[in-house]
């Protein structure tokens, strides 16, 4: 299990109903299904990835995540997970609102553009940063939203979303290892992971 996915998995209670947005080939949902007996549903737009999920026995619907979320009643899920995709969506506000409508809690993770290497590249080379986590050129990157861990916290406050938990990580030698960054995460972490809840429901 990839390090960031293992953290997300550790936040989900056994037997929960989980919706995975942009769930890819269903690695995380499959892990949660086998280890935490969750009731899983995935949304994925790429046909070949959808097929891989179904072959694994994962319930998955092919389609656009915004469009597909509309069909679910309020609080249909315990958790709605958006892993490594927030930076690629056109309407992040809408997506997160929808997540917290169909789910009691939301989990989002994204690459931290406040990471020091990213800052250093812009500062010293004067060019759009390219890192291991953000390996794209400006003209072919799917990452259309540039945000940092600090940006996201501020966004949550403005959106009246409560951050229940957060983890900032940096990668290890393999995708399966890593470190949780506690000191100055916005500077030293490559990824931010947040567990969210609507402000109203926590009041």
């Amino acid at each position, binding site marked *: 299990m990839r390090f960031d996915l293992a953290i997300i998995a550790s936040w989900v209670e056994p037997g929960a109903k989980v919706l995975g947005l942009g769930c890819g080939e269903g690695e995380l949902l499959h892990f949660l299904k086998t280890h935490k007996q969750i009731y899983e549903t995935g949304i994925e737009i790429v046909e070949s990835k959808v097929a891989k999920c*179904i*072959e694994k*026995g994962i319930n998955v*619907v*092919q*389609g656009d995540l915004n469009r*597909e979320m509309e069909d679910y*009643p309020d609080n249909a899920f315990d958790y709605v997970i958006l892993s490594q995709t927030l930076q690629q969506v056109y309407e992040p506000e809408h997506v997160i609102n929808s997540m917290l409508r169909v789910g009691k809690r939301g989990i989002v993770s994204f690459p931290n553009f406040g990471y020091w290497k990213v800052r250093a590249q812009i500062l010293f080379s004067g060019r759009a940063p390219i890192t291991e986590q953000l390996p794209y050129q400006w003209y072919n990157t799917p990452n259309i939203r540039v945000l940092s861990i600090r940006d996201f916290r501020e966004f949550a406050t403005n959106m009246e979303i409560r951050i229940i938990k957060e983890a900032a990580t940096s990668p290890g030698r393999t995708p399966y290892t890593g470190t949780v960054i506690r000191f100055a995460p916005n500077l030293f972490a490559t990824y931010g992971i947040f567990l969210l809840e609507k402000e109203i429901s926590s009041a």
Partner: protein
Amino acid sequence: MSEYTEHDKNGVSVGLVEKKTFTFAHPPDRMELESGASLGPVTIAYETYGTLNADKSNVVLVAHALTGDSHAAGYYREDDPKPGWWDIMIGPGKGIDTNRYFVICSNVIGGCMGSTGPCSINPATGRPYGISFPVITIGDMVKAQKALMDHLGIERLLSVVGGSMGGMQVLEWSVRYPDMVASAIPLATTTRHSALAIAFNEVARQAIMSDPNWNKGDYYGGKTPDLGLAVARMIGHITYLSDEAMKQKFGRRLQDKSSFSYDFGVDFQVESYLRHQGASFVERFDANSFLYITKAADYFDLEEQHGGGSAVGAFSKASARFLVVSFTSDWLYPTYQSKAMVTAMKKNGLAVSFCEIDADFGHDAFLVPNRRLTELIRGFLKSVSAKL
């Protein structure tokens, strides 16, 4: 549905199979039909492949499309030129693995391949029913299949699988007998025919009924309405393919000639193909059955019949886990129709998977070898059987 059956490339097959029959609604009993009419006695032709396990939990019911039959896999004789219509999917180690599952496929009532239909003898008159045969519905077909399951002592289906009109039966099963259906795989299908689909069926029926040999359905023992039925089949064939499939398969290529003949014989390959399909179809299919079965498909409206006009209402009766599959080039039952049923299933909190398979072959894509479809069905069935 068209015929694409050919021998398995690896020679894998369920082997020799046998068509069996079961008859119910013997006098004084009658089978009550949705139209209010009744029918009896009713015979169902069916075949089974694989072995029923001790707790009868490995049953997969396969429902055939418009012109299919109970012969879904295997061979009747050693020298059979071709296997059953879904031999690519059903067999040892195949998508519907007969080493694991007990597969049942039955001919629909109204058909002409062994189940009671308009060409059967009406015991009241001693002559074929013809158009005195009562109009049947998809619901009636499923009700008859349920009688067969009762006869076989099967109380729960691991899965019901079918494409096109077979998919309609799958959907009907899922809401009519929800307690019996653990999972359902509707392929390239719809909860109700569009005006487009009804229109094509109507033209096909008109072709049959305007053939003088049709004789108001009373042609048994005499000349049969072959021309009308052949044209009906040609129309069907066009709707089962796609622009792309026809472009690839025929283009504007000419048949056995290098220039136009400037008459009304066969010039284009596509003309030759359609004529051949029409001509071979009349040898195996009854024109009246074609009328009855297309009408049943047109009448099918899951939303109206089970949900008071709402798909969400209809699927509120279902409890199965679903795998819905559509094909990009299917213009008879386009993807939006599959997506509409998926939406209704989601709104009911049903476990549903949906995949739109990228395929050029049009509506018939579910019948041609497709690795993706095979793996989807294999994986889905495996996870459903693991849960039981």
